[in-house]
């Protein structure tokens, strides 16, 4: 049981990386993005393709570590494009418009992946090495350990950003009221761009680490992981980064423990859904969310 709990935490860490991005975007624009997972997947697919066939024109086959770097960079660029050309034009419209648009982006990217990289799954070699550690009978592979470590770093950095920097305060002001933030001198568009770029980078990281941890990646995989991240964000509070982290870790642990206890397929997913429903009914703002923020 302890082994399942620990491995569940590492899966949850991967979801949390995506969930932090979801919350960043939600805090800055009040847009619930369903595209984060597939944005990360697209970047990772590009990295895997360049590792397999070489960079077009250069024919240099990049190393597994660089697949992670490419995943992060490409995902940042894709996120930037989505922010500029899909979400920002919808910023003043009802939130459902942007939500549906991000769903469209996720589907578009997944289908593009199928077209460009094929329907078959891609083997995803670990970008962070093939080492393992044993923790209380749990064998943790490198991608799982790194996901957890990166999550800790992200948690510290975001805490510092929002409590120690003027830019972070600007993001908070934008979340409260963009018009007032503008009056106060906050460059709101810059805040929007920042949120999407960071969210894209985190999605790329998550795709590379989860893809390697789960033994391969296929189109739509990260959309499913993204939904788990969204579940974590809803459970923790859509406007709370600590909440998203706690919620996602809870999702990972719940999946692992329930899935290990009940053999019937789908039981773990059902348990997560019940937890989400319970949260929405009992505490709609989530564990650590702000009253009225969602």
């Amino acid at each position, binding site marked *: 049981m302890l*082994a*399942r709990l620990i*491995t569940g935490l590492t*899966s949850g860490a991967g979801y949390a990386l995506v969930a932090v991005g979801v919350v960043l975007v939600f805090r800055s624009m009040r847009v*619930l993005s*369903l595209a984060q997972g597939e944005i990360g997947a697209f970047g990772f697919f590009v990295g895997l393709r360049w590792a397999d066939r070489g960079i077009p024109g250069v024919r240099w086959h990049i190393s597994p570590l660089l697949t992670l770097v490419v995943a992060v960079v490409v995902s940042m660029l894709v996120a930037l494009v989505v922010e500029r050309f899909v979400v920002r034009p919808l910023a003043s419209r009802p*939130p*459902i418009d942007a*939500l549906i648009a991000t*769903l469209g982006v996720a589907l578009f990217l997944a289908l593009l992946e*199928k077209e460009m990289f*094929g*329907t*078959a*799954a*891609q*083997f995803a070699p670990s970008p962070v090495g093939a080492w*393992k550690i044993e923790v209380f009978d749990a*064998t943790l*592979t490198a991608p799982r350990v790194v996901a957890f470590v990166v999550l800790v770093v992200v948690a510290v950095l975001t805490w510092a950003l929002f409590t120690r920097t003027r830019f972070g305060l600007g993001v908070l002001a934008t979340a409260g009221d963009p018009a007032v933030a503008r009056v106060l001198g906050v460059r709101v568009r810059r805040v929007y761009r920042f949120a999407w770029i960071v969210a894209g980078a985190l999605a790329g990281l998550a795709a590379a680490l*989860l893809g390697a*941890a*789960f*033994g*391969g990646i*296929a189109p739509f*995989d990260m959309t*499913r*992981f993204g*939904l*788990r991240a*969204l*579940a974590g964000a*809803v459970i923790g509070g*859509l406007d709370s980064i600590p909440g998203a982290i706690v919620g996602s870790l809870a999702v990972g642990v719940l*999946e*692992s423990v329930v*899935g*290990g206890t009940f*053999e*019937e*397929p*789908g*039981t*773990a*997913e*059902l348990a*997560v*859904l019940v937890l*989400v*429903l319970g949260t*929405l009914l009992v505490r*709609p*703002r989530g564990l650590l969310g702000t009253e*009225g923020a*969602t």
Partner: protein
Amino acid sequence: MVFRRRTAILGLLALLPLVGGACGERFEEDDATGGLGPGAPEASATTTGPALPSGRGRTNGVTDDEIKIGYLLPLTGAAPVPSRFDKGVTAYWDYVNARGGIHGRQVTVVVEDTESQAEIGKDKAKKLVEDDEVFAVVVLDRLENQDAIGQYLNDLEVPTISIQTPADLPADQIWNFGVTIDHRVQGALVADYLVRDLGLSRLGVIHENTPALDPGVEAFEAEARELGADVVISRSIEGQAADFLNEALALSESRAEAVWLYMAPLPAARIANQSNDAGFHPIWFANSISWAFDLTFLVGPESLEGARAFSPWLPLSDPRTNEYQEQYRANNDGETPDDLGLVGWGVGQIVAAGLEAAGPDLGQNSFRDAMQHLRFAPDVWAPLDFDDGVRQGANRIAVLAEEDGRWVVERDFTSEF
């Protein structure tokens, strides 16, 4: 407050796909024909059905110089086959047509995508029959989808070649011919091979969560018990899942010596990879129509080392597939052929043999009758032995073994271990 509720509802709606994953697909089991006993392939020869049509029959899709064949394939959706499959189909018929066709008729094909869904598959079958007016249809899809499409085409009395053969092919589906091993027969043979040939006594099976696979699993477990082996783990999974850590841990705890992964390539490779990460590496076993394709090794290059498989067709490493490989390259600008295209090629050979046997006076009844009595050994496929009442024509398989990231023949086509 209104905004809060709305956001909460939107979030809930977005999470609904999780429910899909949780519920899985449910299909009613078809027990129309009664069961074959485990390990008793001969029993299938005794199935009987309704009165058989005679004479030439309808000539839909047949003219003096053309025969039109329809293909229903899952090119997109939950369990797609790569498009190289239909490149193999095209390569075969181009090869045949270049040599004068069948009794002077050129064969043309119409390929439709089932999108891996039974209802869409039936819609596309209707289109093939009513709009395209094809003569016969070749179907490949997930077993439960293929069953539904096969029943639909049978009701329309259209000759159908099903690439997968379900356990207990219903006796009333007289128009439907299965060209690979019956899943129930296969389940028993898997146990025979692992216990008798490899000398193993701790076996496992992990299968996708669909009732269509239950007969195969039951036959495997029953035969293993009969042979004195222990099935130390038997679990089902959702094929669309990605995180199989719980299964990997359970497999590791089971200490199974060989595990049959009765599923599509991606979950099989993922389970092998995640088990490997957990320090567990048994002999992984594939039934061919699941993941005994070379491409699976691209997803699990190390973890699938030493894997074994049953296959109704030969691997690319066998020289008997050279003709296919040459024609595929010629048809596709030198593109490297694979074993998915080989399946398209092989089933083309079977359909062509049926058309040849039906003779120049081709009609759907005469073709059905020719298939019903077809005894044919394709170059790349298990020998077919249809006979009166028998429409599962290939209850033999080749045993394949992994060698340097590709499949090689360990034992040629057989039904005995």
